[in-house]
């Protein structure tokens, strides 16, 4: 399968196979009007299979989302057809407005204006809990 190389844009590589769609959705890439490619189950020497996302536009991505879904992914900024820089997402300490609390007893279920905030409570298990009710992120 051939996907055109991008001139100025972003390549998110080494995404754990199966997580590409979640990243695509959380980054709202479906709402962009530039060319975006999501490649699922691409062959990888290191990983066996991986997902890749290519965005043909020079935009700023929410690295917290990337770090939350897949801290093993890599992000390359492409300028004039060459890799200008690489970034490694970090597990964010706090996630705001990315995921919603599912606890029906949480204050966020009745107060629609409140931002959904999750904090990292255990980096080893990558556990996030709601700031308000401490329910575990699903």
């Amino acid at each position, binding site marked *: 399968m051939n996907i055109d190389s991008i001139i100025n844009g972003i390549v998110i590589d080494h995404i754990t196979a199966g997580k590409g769609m979640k990243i695509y959705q959380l980054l709202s890439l479906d709402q962009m009007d530039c060319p975006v490619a999501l490649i699922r189950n691409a062959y990888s020497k290191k990983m066996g299979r991986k997902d890749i996302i290519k965005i043909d536009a020079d935009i700023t991505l929410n690295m917290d989302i990337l770090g939350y879904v897949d801290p093993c992914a890599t992000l390359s900024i492409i300028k004039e057809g060459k890799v200008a820089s690489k970034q490694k997402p970090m597990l964010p300490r706090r996630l705001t407005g990315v995921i919603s609390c599912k606890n029906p007893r949480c204050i966020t279920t009745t*107060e629609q204006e*409140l931002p959904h905030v999750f904090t990292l409570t255990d980096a080893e298990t990558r556990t996030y809990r709601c700031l308000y009710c*401490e329910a*575990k992120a699903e």
Partner: protein
Amino acid sequence: MRSVIDIRELSVEEIDGLVATAMDIIENPAKYSEACKGKKLATLFFEPSTRTRLSFEAAMYELGGNVLSMASASSSSATKGESVADTAKVISCYADIIAMRHPKEGAPLVAAMNASIPVINAGDGGHNHPTQTLADLLTIHREKGRFNNLTVGFCGDLKFGRTVHSLISALARYEGIKVVLISPDELKLPGYIKKDVMDKAGMAYEETADLMAVMPQLDILYMTRVQGERFFNEEDYLRLRDSYILTPDKLKDAKKDLAILHPLPRVNEIAVAIDDDPRACYFKQVLNGKYMRMALILKLLGITV
């Protein structure tokens, strides 16, 4: 502005300080009778709770302060759709400190984030109830004289029992605490508390469904009510309601200096016949709650006597 939403926000040293203040209040009540003169406590209770509200109000009156209170949750602006954040901002204009109970978990935190005065969480759903834990701790201190080297049994609803979760979190910071978790399978302590609190602290614990079998080793027995309001399913509540009832015959193998605690209200989980047993501490616990609330109000208002 310092608020207290979760017992874990208070360090061991701060808890020791609150206990010391509470003990001084008990010994010298007159010294504190005008400590909060000119200060106002707003009690914002968005779900029914007579005893906690009255305890806060009694605490403020005994400190010489005043209380602003709404008649009932149904008469509050929340019924008109006002947000917790707005309520907190408005009440900050009237009072010096807020005690808030709310059925939604996290509501007092939202209030604290928006108020310009201290907020005390007086219970949020099945989540936190730090002043109950302070009452429990003062009771343990007064009955046992220490917070370490104790075997503490928790019996009944350990799944939804917020007082249990908070007290375990508080005790996890002391040395030599062993916890015995006594409950039916359906009401076991949530796994994350075992993992995030007890395992992290290296706390010794065992789980059992048999109260009688573990009774002889307990220094403290913390009984809880199976609370109907925490269940989504009436059938489950009715089935589990009478799981553990403490009766005088169940105490025959208990230590002579066992302390029986209960956050109250009780329904039938402790037989009335036990009330006269010197080991029953649950009514003393109510009084201790008032003293600890007095100590906490003083601390958060920055008043030293």
